[in-house]
């Protein structure tokens, strides 16, 4: 991914994203209370997002600061497997299953942790009495993306910030749900993977029906149904959908997914009847595998196979038709354009940053039109590694 326009504020591996300039909060009359010391945010690309005053690192590594991990997808966990981190209990379990060996402090959803902050600031907080000056309070809220996925809510003397990580509302039925903080969110960093008006998801139940129909129709025609999807999150969501097939179906999951499925079950998600992939016993069962296996002998040599591609990107018919799938099921674990706007409208933040977007311009245009102050937090992930 290349992000444009190219800005020249880049220095070293660390980009200081402009903080909201005072008095520029547009529209939103009544919420323009000034905060004397705006919150600093450093976008560190692969190394996550760093909040200097709060001395907090989000979804990153490489800075000596308390580090919060929103969820266990590879692009959000630290590259350093030994790094001590904070995470929700399910994320902690999934990270361990994927090989993270450093200490993980488990923070249940809704429970607030107080941290010392950078300690460089004098007083300034006039709002809360129970909060020691300079301290920061961190609370995790369920993000609805995959099991364990959390939004990180940070309260500081300079205001509060919600970082969504990856999120989905309405939430995935195979997650802990989705919940926004009741408290005022001054700053919002929200993911915008699908932030174009061409993306509008159908309800989970509709898509789950498609998954179940695809599986049962293929089986009754004597074909092996193969659902191509990412092995953490989407795979288990699909298995959860298949768990309510009538008549019941048996599922096999490709290699890496097995341990992750056990974590899901430990946290009470029904994945139905399943077992690890076994070539001999596959006939008559449903196979779940990542799309990278499409060309592997495992799938290639199956004579009577039928393939469904399960992803938000499957909603682009012309593009996805190049995948040679028999069915495209646009089930996404990210929020769509309209859901993103709704979250912003609900929270009414003083400033919003969009992140993870192939093209943030359209969503920014809509937000500006509604009077929101907003900008893009270009992650420039490929270039500053």
């Amino acid at each position, binding site marked *: *991914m*290349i992000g*444009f*326009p*190219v800005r020249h504020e880049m220095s070293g591996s660390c980009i200081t994203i402009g903080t909201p300039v005072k008095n520029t909060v547009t529209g939103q009359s009544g919420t323009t209370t000034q905060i004397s010391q705006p919150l600093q945010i450093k976008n560190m690309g692969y190394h996550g997002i760093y909040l200097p005053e709060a001395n907090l690192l989000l979804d990153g590594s490489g800075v000596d600061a308390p580090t919060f991990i929103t969820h266990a997808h590879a692009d959000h966990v630290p590259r350093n497997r030994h790094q001590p981190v904070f995470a929700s209990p399910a994320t902690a379990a999934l990270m361990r299953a994927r090989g993270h060996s450093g200490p993980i402090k488990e923070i249940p959803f809704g429970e607030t942790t107080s941290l010392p902050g950078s300690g460089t600031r004098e007083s300034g907080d006039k709002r809360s009495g129970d909060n020691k000056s300079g301290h920061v309070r961190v609370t995790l809220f369920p993000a609805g993306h995959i099991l364990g996925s959390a939004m990180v809510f940070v309260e500081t003397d300079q205001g509060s910030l919600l970082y969504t990580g990856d999120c989905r509302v309405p939430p995935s039925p195979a997650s802990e749900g989705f919940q926004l903080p009741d408290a005022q969110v001054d700053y919002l960093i929200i993911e915008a993977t699908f932030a*174009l*008006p*061409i*993306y*509008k998801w159908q309800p989970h139940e509709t898509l789950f029906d498609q998954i179940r129909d695809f599986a049962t129709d293929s089986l009754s025609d004597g074909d092996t149904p193969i659902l191509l999807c990412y092995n953490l999150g989407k795979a288990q969501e699909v298995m959860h959908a298949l768990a309510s097939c009538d008549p019941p179906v048996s599922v096999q999951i490709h290699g890496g997914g097995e341990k992750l499925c056990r974590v899901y079950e430990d946290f009470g998600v029904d994945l139905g009847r399943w077992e690890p992939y076994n070539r001999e016993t596959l006939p008559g069962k449903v196979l779940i595998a990542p799309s990278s296996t499409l060309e592997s002998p495992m799938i290639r040599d199956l004579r009577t196979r039928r393939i469904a591609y399960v992803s938000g990107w499957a909603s*682009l*018919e*012309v*593009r996805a*038709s*190049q995948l*040679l*799938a*028999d*069915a*495209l099921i646009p089930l996404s674990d990210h929020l769509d*354009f*309209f859901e993103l706007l709704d979250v912003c409208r609900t929270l009414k933040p003083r400033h919003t940053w969009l992140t993870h977007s*192939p*093209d943030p*311009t*359209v969503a920014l*245009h809509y937000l500006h039109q509604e009077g929101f102050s907003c900008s893009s937090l270009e992650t420039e992930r490929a270039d500053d590694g």
Partner: protein
Amino acid sequence: MTDKAHSPSFARLCETLTDVMHTRSSTRKISLFAGYLKGLEDDRDVSLAVQFTAEGAFSTLSGRRAAVGHRTVALTAAKFCGIDYDVVFRPCRTATGSASETIEKLMQNLPEAAARREPAWLGLDDLADGFERLAAASGREQKQQVLTGLWERMTAREIRFMIRMLSQGSLRIGFEVRSILPAIALAFGVDAEQVRRVHMLTGEIGKTALLARAGELHSARFRMFQPVAFMLASPMETGPVGGAETGDGDGGSAGAGAEGDSGAGAGNVGGSGVDPRAYVAEEKFDGMRTQAHIGPDSGQVSGQVSDPDPGPDSGQVSGQVSVRLFSRDLNDVTVSFPDVAGQLREAMAILPSKKSRPPDVSVSAQPGTLQSGKQNSVTLQSGLQNLVTRQPGTIEAVLDGELCVLEDGRIQPFQRLQKRMGVKKPGRKLLAEHPVRFIAYDLLFLNGEEVIDLPLHKRRRLLEEFCAQTGLPCSRQHEIASAADIERLFRQALEHGNEGLMLKRRDSTYEYGQRNKSWLKVKQPGGSLDTVIMYAHAGSGRRGGTYSDFTLGIRVDEDERYEEQFIPIGKAYGGYTDEELKKLNRRIKELAVERFGPTLSLRPGIVVEVEFDDIQVNRRTKAGYTLRLPRFRSIRWDLSPADTDTLADVERLYRKRAERSGDADPSNSPVLFHKAGTL
């Protein structure tokens, strides 16, 4: 399925097409569409459904179009949805890679757009009517009104397919004519091969479906003045020379360069799995492919094609011989070429003088002189004997050939023909300056006989007879035995100023409407120029998110006609490796000046050596020229923008190519002239 499942609504067709699009197996696609066709009750609906799916808003044969540009459609859609074209529509289209899919999704998703629409479950004939109104509307504003009026009564999915139909041709859902014909056969329980043949004869898939439905396929006959789909040539996959198989050892590379030398190895005809001896060669004329129908006044043959006002320059002579010329897209272009019509009528008029001559004399004498010492003694088909005994006014012939500007027996550069193309009623001066003639190279029908089904060598004999007797020029055909022969003939063709060679399989029938290996074209490469990248465009598909399409500029910094440093000369899409593309994208970032949606304008900095098939005059561009099929040969990191070629270089190249036609030795002229004075 909706409750409209049994009504012949456009929505129902779109549902079927969606199912077809979502199905991979072509057998299942065919049976899905066949099932839909079977369920239609009305003839008109059958014919429209088939036509919309296979040909678009209008039948191919009609040559009509709704004449609504992509930009008009996109701007109208943006306005309809209440969004900004540049800020919102274009980024969305970049993401989907398809304007019609983008519009469908915006129509569906945006509440403003949904609120403006109330599906009226239009019938297929309502759509046909809508397309008529679009074609009749003049100017962007009127067309916008018609589009908006239709969209207000359509579902998002209907709008998507309707837009695709506007661009004529395939809907690009993996369901082409070659699959639609078997679907028609399946729907109405008739033979697929017969359906295919009737489609060729009638040229109309809608009508074909109706004949299939009525069980009247047998009644379809070839009809004079109704064009037959052309047989098409495939490019030769590798160069024709340098093959080990022939032991020829000639390292010449004219053929290797012909397809840009993709590095697949110096192939030869054998290397492409092709035996040269199975083919004959003709030079490939750089003209306009044309099908000529010559016969009794069209009013007598076919009531359909009659000119109410046959002027002096029209193709018709009342009660006498009538001529119709059809272009490759089966449009009637007779009015543009009265000189050709005259040439063909005159050729028919010559016949009576030969009438007294015994057939066998004319048969054995003429063709022998045409090919190096090889005497033909042909047993004539009945059609040919008819030819010489029939009154000229009753002769019917359909010829495939090329229109070229001919002067002193030599084919003139294509650029001169271009001055005549599209000029509907050329004046005397233009006719005198650039005289156009028909050069025949195939014979499809003769006096009611379907010569089209005979193998090439038999058709060729008949063609030579016909030309010998009428004095029409035809292409010279060469025997070939080896790749070396091809190489020699290819060079000779270039010396003659022709495009290259056509290799035609001796035993092939005339495969109308198909592009198989029976005809192979061997073309010479274009040229190359050093250009600079002016704009980078975000690509689509696999390359989404990277800049993969590039507008190339030619230098005009010392050209008094221009104020700019560089002006665009063409747009290139490929020819680089993934590695190069990455490097290009890194450099592009450094050179980026401004961004317009998916397009970045760049400071001059990247030099690309680009190769192309041809240079064309294009008055609508700033440069006045465009490159045909430009693609990367190499990225010249070693060159700076000051080292690039100039517009003056382009003009020089163009002139050189235009003058290419060398002095043809009449004894090996690529055209056989049977009779002085017919030109």
